[in-house]
């Protein structure tokens, strides 16, 4: 029994069904189906313009799909009320691409913010929780710093600590390795694996970074032109023969627009010579 079969037997925490979205004539998402199972790390791969940002916004309830449904923990967030959406969101933590920390608050206050606003916990409990979260991401001595004073890697770790503040079941990472050097990026990968191991979290990672994707993933999904063209365990995904996946994995460029332009100019010059 492979890991994917094992995963399929458990329940889907995020379940995306037939989600479509278009801006004007451009179809950004085309009947996307995707499941994320409890306790797994699913990496959603996709190039620029593949629709992965749009899909992420819809999973977070920041945008509505035109058709289809997205269920988080069994609640369809495309049709539920604002208060239900609020309840569902408390079970999700999101680490945004740039961290999205509030610059006017210290790192510790950033982590404490959701606890102060959304729970009735006593101040001492909040302080302890914040310290534990910072400890878990390896920032226990950076609590009093302000976001602009942090390095890129620390900022992402702080964002993870804030995302974990309310002990979510689902963690979502948007481009965790973007803008980081390989060493820091590898450290973040280890953090993601650590979170899965020790807290049993369900983790969805949206990225285009291949190395990191194959290191951390249980399963890999590939989004191309608004369609999920493959979802598989990373071993089987690496052997997938779909031309676009091969191109992505082997880092081959599209037909370069420069070549077409050169040909056009050449033919234009030839044509104009004929006129004389």
């Amino acid at each position, binding site marked *: 029994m492979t890991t994917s079969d094992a995963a399929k037997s458990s329940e889907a925490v995020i379940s995306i069904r037939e989600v479509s979205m278009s801006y004007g004539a451009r179809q950004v998402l085309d009947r996307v189906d995707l499941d994320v199972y409890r306790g797994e790390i699913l990496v959603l791969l996709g190039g620029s313009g593949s629709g992965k940002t749009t899909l992420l*916004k819809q999973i*977070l*309830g*920041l945008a509505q799909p035109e058709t289809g449904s997205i269920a988080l923990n069994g609640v369809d967030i495309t049709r539920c009320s604002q208060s239900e959406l*609020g309840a569902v*969101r*408390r079970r*999700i933590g*999101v680490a*945004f*691409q*740039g*961290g*999205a*920390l*509030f610059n006017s608050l210290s790192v510790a206050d950033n982590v404490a*913010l*959701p606890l*102060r*606003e*959304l729970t009735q916990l006593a101040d001492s409990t909040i302080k302890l929780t914040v310290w534990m979260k910072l400890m878990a991401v390896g920032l226990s001595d950076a609590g009093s710093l302000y976001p602009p004073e942090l390095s890129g890697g620390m900022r992402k770790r702080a964002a993870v600590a804030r995302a974990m503040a309310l002990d979510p079941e689902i963690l979502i990472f948007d481009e965790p390795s973007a803008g980081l050097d390989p060493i820091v990026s590898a450290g973040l990968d280890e953090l993601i694996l650590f979170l899965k191991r020790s807290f049993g979290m369900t983790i969805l990672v949206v990225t285009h970074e291949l190395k990191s994707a194959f290191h951390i993933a249980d399963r890999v999904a590939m989004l191309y032109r608004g369609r999920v063209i493959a979802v598989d365990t990373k071993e089987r995904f690496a052997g997938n023969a779909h031309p676009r996946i091969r191109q992505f994995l082997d880092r081959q460029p599209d037909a370069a627009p420069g070549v077409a332009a050169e040909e056009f100019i050449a033919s234009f010059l030839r044509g104009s010579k004929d006129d004389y």
Partner: protein
Amino acid sequence: MTFLEQVGQAAVVRVEDAGAFTIQFWSVLRKLPRMLPIVGTGTRWRSVVQQMLAIGASALPMSGTMALCTGFILALQSASELRRFGALEFVVDLVAIGFTRELGPLITALSVSGRSASAISAEIGTMVVTEEIDALRVMGLDPVEFILAPKYLAALITIPCLTILSTLCGIFAGYLFLALSMDMSLRIYFQAVAEAILLRDVAFLLVKSLVFATIIVQVGCLEGLRVRGGPEAVGHSTTAAVVKSTFLVIFADLLATAIFYLMGWSSVK
């Protein structure tokens, strides 16, 4: 695109602007009670005070100086005409009424619009670009309550105060001029000022300053929240915020003054 289509499209954009403004204004207004110190949640009041310092207190030197200069200019310009009729003392009425009804609120609004509409839209626009607004929403915190409402309440409190202080500065400039040119004493000057100004002039000043505060903050927030894309969009939104809020302030001033005039409130005694 035909001319008619262009006109239609421009009109649709304006109507959309007005709609977005109204919706945002209403949703911010509904959150205002929660900002208040004793009846509200309490934690928000601290950010309101911060905003009061940023929008109001630090604008005082600038708008005060602007009012002082304008008051002196007004006195100088009117004196050269009034002196020909031997009616130099009417400079008092002109400066007092002119500042209370018109120049005080307007100059304050223009200086705050230049300082704060741009600052607000840049701050919020940057938060949109860095996904901080999205992060708030995902955490279940309402950006309207968290970011917009403290700014609006701070402006509603500080801009009328600022307006009163700049008006006093402007009127004081009138005294400076008269003291220099005809040795008028401070007591006589301010007695004449108190006689010239009616209570409804002061009420008019306060209403105007509240309207201007609304325009400046709401336009700043609206333009900031509209930012899409990268950091360069923040620059565009800042420019748009200043241009639109300045224009709307002057336009609202025209409407208010026209109403004041047509109701017959402007006839003196």
